[in-house]
């Protein structure tokens, strides 16, 4: 392909800037993965160098000391179910707020917006008392409920914007066609905001997958630990084995990064194309 003639200074600057930013992003991540193969001495002594050998010693340490498969399963269960419930309930709320005029609709949207600004961490003690009363302490269901509740506001926030942008004549038309409100929502409107749902899904799956705060408080038995929690508690107070740490961090990051890269086409298309035109 022939390049355009006007590849002037400005264009060069742009490319340099973009490449520089991309390097600034990729290099530290590359270093993290590499450090997972290093010993402590290598990390401290030759930080820039490639690992002496690509052995999986650090990973073996993690595998042997912690129950990684169980943690992975737990994190997957919690993240998948939370995001699933979240998208369903979030879509329901966003649909009601964005597609109907009703008395108190402003109050309802403020109600959900308020949740967006409310860091649940601040109410951890009453939350614990409540979950205990419901028998949800040391139970993955408890985490699922917390994560769903925590992520609902932002989901409603994102989906409301997209749903508002859909033309009203579409649902009028479906109404004339005799479709019930449920059918209009499920068959006509919601399929049009799937990009937004992918956005909301990934946007919320990231903090859920990575969270270690709530599991620390609410999960006690080792069988119920999540990956982030399992690894966090593995790095004990006085152990400063950075190679193992990096291996663990890489391991924790890997599943989500893979999901993202696989889904990136849809996700980014959804993000950048916005609502249908």
């Amino acid at each position: 392909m022939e390049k355009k003639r006007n590849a002037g200074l400005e264009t060069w600057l742009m490319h340099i800037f973009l490449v520089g930013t991309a390097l600034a992003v990729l290099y530290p991540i590359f270093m993290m993965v590499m450090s997972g193969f290093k010993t402590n001495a290598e990390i401290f002594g030759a930080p820039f160098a490639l690992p002496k050998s690509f052995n999986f010693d650090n990973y073996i340490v993690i595998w042997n000391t912690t129950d990684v498969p169980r943690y992975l399963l737990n994190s997957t269960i919690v993240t998948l179910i939370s995001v699933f419930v979240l998208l369903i309930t979030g879509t329901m709320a966003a649909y009601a707020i964005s597609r109907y005029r009703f008395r108190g609709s402003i109050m309802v949207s403020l109600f959900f917006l308020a949740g967006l600004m409310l860091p649940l961490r601040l109410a951890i003690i009453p939350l614990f008392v409540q979950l205990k009363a419901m028998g949800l302490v040391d139970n993955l269901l408890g985490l699922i409920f917390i994560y769903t509740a925590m992520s609902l506001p932002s989901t409603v926030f994102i989906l409301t914007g997209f749903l508002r942008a859909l033309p009203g004549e579409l649902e009028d038309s479906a109404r004339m066609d005799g479709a019930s409100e449920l059918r209009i929502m499920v068959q006509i409107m919601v399929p049009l905001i799937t990009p937004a749902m992918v956005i909301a899904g990934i946007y919320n799956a990231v903090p859920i997958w990575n969270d270690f705060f709530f599991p620390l408080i609410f999960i006690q038995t080792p069988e119920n630990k999540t990956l982030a929690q399992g690894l966090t508690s593995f790095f004990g107070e006085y152990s400063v084995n950075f190679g193992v740490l990096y291996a663990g961090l890489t391991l924790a990051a890997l599943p989500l990064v893979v999901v993202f890269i696989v889904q990136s086409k849809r996700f980014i298309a959804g993000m950048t194309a916005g609502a249908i035109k």
Partner: protein
Amino acid sequence: MKHHLTRALAAALAFSIAAPVFAQTELSFWSWRQEDVAAYGEIIAAFEESHPDITVTYTAHEAKAYNTILTTALAGGSGPDIIHTRAYGSLENISGAGYLEPLDGQVDLSTIPDTLLRGTTLRSDGKVYSVPFATQTVLVYYNKDIFDANSITPPETWDEFMAAAQALKDAGITPLANGTADGWTIEVASGAIMPNFYGETFFEEVTSGATTFDDPRYVTALSRMAELAPYMPVGFEGVDYATMKALFTSGAAAMFIGGSWEIPSWRDAGLNVGFMPGPAAEAGGTRMVATWLDGGYAVNAASPNKEAALEFIRFTATPEFAQMLADKLNNVPAVQGATPTDDALAEIIELQENQTPYIMLVAFRFNKPTGSTLLQDGLQQLLTGSKSAEEVAAEVAAGIAAAE
């Protein structure tokens, strides 16, 4: 997709009801000591052998979050049967709230010295809530190989210490691994240096109110700390605990001021390490070591298995337990009657002849702001040169006076 979800749901439900019922009493035991999981496993096995009807499950939580996890669980009416507690102010926070079972009369505490029991006694009712487990001692570690290579003998006085540091520095070696990024590490370091300058009686005087922290002796001690700065690593302001340890274990730094709990990690790293108390103020002066009680074992007042839990706690107050603590964990047990088999441990116990309380933790972590907060902030500023020793002392004194 649907299939996976159903399976996932089923799994989630299965976990929630998978609490098997045993005929015997099952006790849960929480701690922040993740590095001790294996040792506690052996200790518990010994206990279970003599108490076949009791099972104890040891759970080590993430250390930084242990306070939050425990506090939340207790406040939520939950928590383990047996609690590994900290001592002093941290313990008062939960014992004062009534979450712990008073142990007086239920556990034989005669094997424990009063000074240590004070660390687990609630000041308001005078009752003991936790069986003290081990003491920690602040030591100056030195890399014997580096000292030998540079023909340096372990310094005994402050002047010798300074001279040794200068010699190391001239040889291109970082004399001291300590930094100030993690405030608590510099407070620990002060525990090795300062007591020999503010003297043996200062603790009693300052806790009884006879003097305050702007006492000239304390100011002198502080100014000694400031003199350490040139011998700390380049950029010591940003050197945290992990970096300190990395510097010392890698042989980049020759000395490390830290707690007695470090010994196993030096051994793991294969270092040829010696240790000594902080240098004396002048030749022939006493070399005191700061010590404190690291914590204890307590019973959750809300535990449904209180009797079994108390049984375990009684076990922790026995010399048998102390011996295991010394052998398996290399700790200086609070319970008397153990004979250390480890040379280093024996040496530390010997050094404790000249012990002085680790001042802020032992006496000034009950109110806010704590003495530790004030001292750590002050030391950071002192070492970077943004405050003088007089200013720091005055601020600590004012802060302690205003604390409530």
